[in-house]
């Protein structure tokens, strides 16, 4: 028997039992659809996070106390401004080092109020981070040295508190203290769920007094190029650990962040895909089940075919093609709906979704494989039927 004949027989059998074929395919469609959509969401999330990290600026090293790692406990900060000065000396160029101390506070302008992230920092922010101004100026060295009550607002804070009014030179209140707005940042979006447009930057010295703190949260350093990152990182950590014997400090680079976040998201995508895989498995069991029913129903037909000269191999091929056709058509439909669904999710929800070729090819390959895997048992049963008994079957 030629492959073409087997194919035609299989399509005919599926066509005859249209509703049953469609319902059987449904299981496979849902499984493949889930795989495609979940992989798209996982990939989309990873892409989004990676572009967020890249959007921070280039060649940034963040220094924090304690050790960083998945599962590590947060450490009480022991860093202070003196440490920042020490790091500046280690780096050699003070303008490439900045500090931050942050706290959530309410900011008021007249009757308007907004809950914002107050970040105490210094004049070096624009040297290290990608933080363009929409209007006004950055914090200055004098602001920090003289502990001025000046603020640079994130774009969202500015529009919430001032609306259409130009905020430059106007007053805003944080915890009862009056601040003068000197600048407004451009909209930059969120990084790791931190809404950077809701930040308010004030001089670190002013922030420490306002918040009653002497510590800082972290130090950020801008390397001059990718090759400098690693030596600089080691130098800074060594300098801090020398200053605070027995304590550990961590300096993370963007590459490390990308690696860590990438592996976490990869794991998440893997788990989601595995769950989707289970539904594909259930779809495959459905195919197996229906094929067994079909073999039983067509016992007489199988007996007849054998009497007319069909070999076991011919019968096996016929039923295997039928099963593979079921899962493959289901797989293609699942891919189409999955790709469509992913594009829709990406377009109308805040969840990013990116279709990748490998996930589509994988889904297709898996649906073919599911057909073979779950089709073999029923097809073998058909092929091994005794023709005499099969011809007698009711």
């Amino acid at each position, binding site marked *: *028997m*030629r492959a073409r*004949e087997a194919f035609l027989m299989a399509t*005919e059998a599926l066509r*005859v039992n249209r509703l049953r074929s469609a319902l059987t395919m449904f299981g496979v469609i849902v499984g493949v659809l889930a795989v495609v959509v979940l992989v798209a969401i996982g990939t989309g999330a990873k892409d989004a996070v990676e572009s967020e990290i890249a959007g921070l600026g280039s060649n940034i090293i963040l220094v924090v106390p304690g050790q960083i790692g998945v599962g590590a406990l947060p450490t009480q900060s022991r860093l202070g401004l003196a440490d920042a000065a020490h790091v500046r000396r280690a780096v050699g160029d003070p303008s490439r080092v900045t500090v931050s101390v942050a706290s959530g506070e309410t900011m008021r302008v007249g009757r308007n109020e907004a809950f914002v992230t107050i970040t105490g920092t210094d004049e070096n922010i624009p040297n290290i981070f990608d933080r363009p101004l929409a209007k006004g100026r950055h914090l200055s060295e004098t602001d920090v040295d003289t502990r001025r009550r000046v603020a640079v607002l994130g774009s969202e804070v500015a529009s919430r508190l001032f609306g259409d009014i130009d905020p430059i030179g106007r007053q805003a209140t944080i915890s009862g203290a009056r601040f003068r707005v000197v600048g407004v940042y451009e909209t930059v979006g969120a990084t790791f769920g931190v809404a950077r447009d809701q930040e308010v930057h004030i001089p670190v010295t002013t922030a420490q007094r306002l918040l009653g703190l002497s510590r800082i949260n972290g130090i950020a350093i801008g390397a001059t190029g990718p090759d400098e990152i690693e030596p600089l990182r080691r130098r800074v950590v060594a300098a801090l650990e020398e200053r605070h014997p027995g304590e550990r400090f961590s300096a993370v680079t963007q590459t490390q962040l990308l690696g860590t976040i990438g592996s976490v998201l990869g794991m998440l995508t893997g788990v989601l895909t595995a769950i989707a895989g289970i539904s594909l498995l259930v779809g495959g069991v459905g195919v197996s089940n229906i094929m067994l029913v079909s073999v039983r129903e067509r016992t*007489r*037909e199988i*007996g*007849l*075919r*054998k*009497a*007319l*000269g*069909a*070999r*076991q*191999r*011919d019968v096996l091929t016929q039923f295997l093609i039928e099963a593979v056709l079921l899962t493959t058509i289901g797989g293609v439909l699942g891919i189409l709906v999955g790709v469509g669904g992913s594009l829709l999710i990406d377009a109308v929800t805040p969840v990013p979704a990116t279709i990748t070729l490998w996930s589509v090819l994988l889904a297709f390959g898996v649906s073919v494989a599911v057909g073979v895997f779950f089709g073999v048992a029923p097809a073998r049963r058909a092929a091994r039927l*005794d*023709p*005499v008994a099969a*011809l007698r079957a009711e």
Partner: protein
Amino acid sequence: MTAPATAPPAFEGENLRRSYQADGVAVEALRGVDLCIESGEFVAIIGPSGSGKSTLMHLLGCLDRPTSGTLRVGGVDVATLSEAGLAELRNETIGFVFQSFHLLPRTSALDNVALPLVYRGVGAAERRTRARAALTAVGLGHRLTHRPAQMSGGEQQRVAIARALVGDPKVVLADEPTGNLDTRNGAEVMDILAGLNADQGVAVVLVTHEPEVAARASRRIHVRDGRIEQDAR
């Protein structure tokens, strides 16, 4: 027409035995059958139900193998053949006609008739040509696209005969071919089988319990209790 003397017998069985396991008990359906059917013969196998005539028929049709004894079909010992070899032998030398027709219900007469050629690897165009010729030969040239349900029982059995003939077999095995037909249609089917034997030299072996059907054959083999009771020419 008589086949040349050099042609091997259509069937040659020596001490054929076939037993089944039924609920752990061995049931002997055939208890030592010796028979030889020459090519071109017209034979009826007669016997009451349970006599073993159907089992004999299945052995001759290569649908089953004897438990012991030797069976040669067209000179070939079936014990030497693999499953695929046996299927090929069925396809090329034997044409089956069943009591209940066994046509594929959703398939046209033409495609039903062409089915054996599918397993022989014959191309679609040639299959159709040969199937059309076979249907015309049984007087159904006007029923090519009809499905079994659209035809009478007599017509369905004629389609089945056309299917048995389409591969130019050496033997047609007919299992109660008139069992589901009325007298007139039964006679018509018998006429076709007899004509086939007389005109084309195809051996016809039919299993029946109807004496008037058996009377059409030139040789009658009576089977009882798994043995040949009488072999009358």
